[in-house]
C-alpha cells in the first residue's frame, strides 16, 4: 500500500487538521466528535442541510460545506458510516430554527446511524427531515433487499437543496426537492483498478491487466460483473444504457450530465468519457444542458468513473445555477 499518510490510524484526524488549516475562512472543523460546519453556522431562519458518510470519497462531503450547499458534513472512518453522536452534534450546531435536512446515502450503516441521530435530535426538539438517495442502477431495486446505493446523485442533491435552502424554502419543500432530484437522477460506475483502505492495507478484489469491473460502488467493493477492458465508447454505452432505460430518459429530455472520476483517473480520460457520453445522448435526442466533470465522489485512489444523469426542469436548472461557495464547488460567488 502506497499512500501519502503518516499512519493508517491517523488518516482521518490528519485530514481534518489539514482541512482546518486550509479552510478556516469557510468552515470550522470540530474534532470530538468530528464534523465540519460552515464558519457562519447556524444561519438563523434558514433550513440547514447535513450530510455525511465514510471518508475516502473526498471532496464529498466535507468539500461541499459552504454557502449554497451543505451546512455541515460528518466524516466517518474510511468507508465507514459516521456515528449518531457526530450527526447529532452537527445537527445541533447548524440548526437555525427552521429545521435540518439529513441527506443520507442508502447504505445500511449510514441509514441506521442517521436514523438514530434523527431520533436523538428530535428528542432535543430539533425538527429533522431525512431523505435517502439511492440512484445506483447497478443494484437491482427491491423491497426485500438493502436496495440501491446512493452515489452520484447525492452530490447534485446537496448542491440543489443547498440552493433551495439558501432561497428560504421551508424544510418540507427542501426535502421534497431532494426526493425529486433522487427520483430524476440515476448513476452507474466502473473500475479499472481496485482501491486500498489504509486500515486493510490490501485491495478487496484484484483485476487482471485486461479486466475491468462494471457496476462498482464507492467503497472498493467488487461490482456486479467483471469483463475484458473495452474502449471508452463501449464503456459509456454499458453504463449509460441502464441509466437511460431506468428513469427512463426520453427524446427531448434535458439533462445534467455528471462524469465523475473515482479518484485515480486523470481528467484527460474523464473528458474522453464525457465526449462519448455526449455522442451517446445526442444519438437519443437527449440534450445535455449542464455538466459536471471531475473527481467529486471518489473511492480513494480507485481508477474508473461513474456517470450520473439528472433530468432537469426549470426549477432544478435554476437551483443548480444558483451561487455556491463551498471548498470544492464554487460558482457565482
Amino acid at each position, binding site marked *: 500500500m502506497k499512500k501519502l499518510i503518516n499512519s493508517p490510524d491517523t488518516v482521518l484526524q490528519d485530514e481534518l487538521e489539514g482541512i482546518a488549516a486550509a479552510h478556516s475562512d469557510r468552515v470550522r472543523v470540530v474534532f470530538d466528535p468530528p464534523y465540519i460546519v460552515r464558519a457562519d453556522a447556524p444561519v438563523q431562519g434558514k433550513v440547514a442541510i447535513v450530510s455525511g458518510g465514510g471518508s475516502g470519497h473526498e471532496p464529498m462531503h466535507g468539500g461541499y460545506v459552504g454557502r449554497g450547499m451543505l451546512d455541515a458534513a460528518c466524516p466517518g472512518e474510511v*468507508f465507514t458510516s459516521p456515528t449518531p453522536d457526530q450527526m447529532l452534534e452537527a445537527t445541533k450546531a447548524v440548526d437555525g430554527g427552521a429545521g435540518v435536512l439529513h441527506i443520507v446515502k442508502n447504505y*445500511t450503516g449510514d441509514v441506521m446511524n442517521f436514523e438514530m441521530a434523527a431520533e436523538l435530535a428530535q428528542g432535543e426538539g430539533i425538527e429533522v427531515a431525512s431523505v435517502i438517495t439511492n440512484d445506483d442502477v447497478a*443494484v437491482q431495486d427491491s423491497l426485500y433487499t*438493502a436496495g440501491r446505493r446512493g452515489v452520484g446523485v447525492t452530490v447534485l442533491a446537496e448542491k440543489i437543496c443547498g440552493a433551495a435552502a439558501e432561497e428560504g424554502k421551508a424544510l418540507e419543500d427542501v426535502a421534497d426537492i431532494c426526493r425529486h432530484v433522487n427520483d430524476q437522477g440515476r448513476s452507474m460506475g466502473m473500475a479499472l483498478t481496485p482501491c486500498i483502505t489504509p486500515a486493510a492495507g*490490501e485491495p478487496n478484489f484484484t483485476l487482471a491487466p485486461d479486466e475491468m469491473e462494471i457496476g462498482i460502488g464507492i467503497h472498493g*467493493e467488487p461490482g456486479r460483473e467483471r469483463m475484458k477492458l473495452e474502449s471508452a465508447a463501449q464503456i459509456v454505452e454499458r453504463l449509460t444504457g441502464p441509466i437511460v432505460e431506468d428513469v427512463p430518459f426520453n427524446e427531448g429530455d434535458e439533462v445534467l450530465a455528471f462524469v465523475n472520476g473515482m479518484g485515480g483517473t486523470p481528467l484527460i480520460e474523464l473528458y474522453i468519457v464525457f465526449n462519448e457520453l455526449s455522442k451517446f445522448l445526442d444519438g437519443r435526442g437527449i440534450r445535455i444542458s449542464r455538466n459536471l466533470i471531475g473527481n467529486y465522489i471518489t473511492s480513494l485512489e480507485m481508477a474508473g468513473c461513474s456517470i450520473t444523469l439528472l433530468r432537469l426542469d426549470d426549477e432544478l436548472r435554476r437551483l443548480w445555477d444558483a451561487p455556491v461557495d463551498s471548498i470544492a464547488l464554487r460558482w457565482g460567488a
Partner: protein
Amino acid sequence: MSITHDAVRDWMERFAAEVAENRSYLTKLDGAIGDGDHGTNMDRGMKKALERLQAADGDDIGASLKAVGMALVSSVGGAAGPLYGTFFMQMGQAAAGRSELDLAGFTEAFDAGVQGVVKRGKAEPGDKTMLDALKPALDALRQAGDSDVAAALGRAAQAAHEGMEATVPMVARKGRASYLGERSAGHQDPGATSSHLLLKSAAEAVGATN
C-alpha cells in the same frame, strides 16, 4: 450457577480479545462481499467499550451492557455500530439493576438484544447477516430448559457456529453484500462471524467446554 457481573465483564473482555485477534480475518471476509472494514470497526469499538467498562464501577449488569452498547454506537459506525450497539443497549435495558442473571434471565435479556437488532436492521433469518448466528443461538438458549448455564451457552455458541457456516451459500439480501446479488454466495458473512465470536466468548466466560 448464575451469571455474575464479573462473568459479564469477562465476557466482554474475551469478546474484545477475540475481535482483536480476528481483526484481519473479519476484515478479509468483509472485503470479499463488503467494504473490508468490519474487523477494524469492531476492534476500534470493543477497545472503546472496554475503556468505558474499566472506568465504570458497580455491579449492575444492565448498566455495564448499556455502556458497552453506547460505546459501540459512538465509535464503530457502519452497519455493525448501530446493530451491535442496539443489541447491547437493549440487552442492558432488560437486565437493568441486576447483579446476576440466571439462565432464564440471561435468555430474556439476550432475546431483547436480538429483537433490537431485528427492529433496527429489519433483516430476517436467511438474509446472510449477523442474525443468522444470533437467532440460532437464541433458539438454543430457549431450548436449554433447566440445563446449567455453561452447558446452555456452550450449545448456543455451537448453534451460532452452525448459523455462521450456514451463511456461506446464502445470497445476501441485507447490508452491503446484497449489492453483489448472486456473487455474494460462497462467502461467509463477516457479521455472522463476529456474532459467533460473541457467543463463543460468552460460553468461555461461564466455563463451558467447547
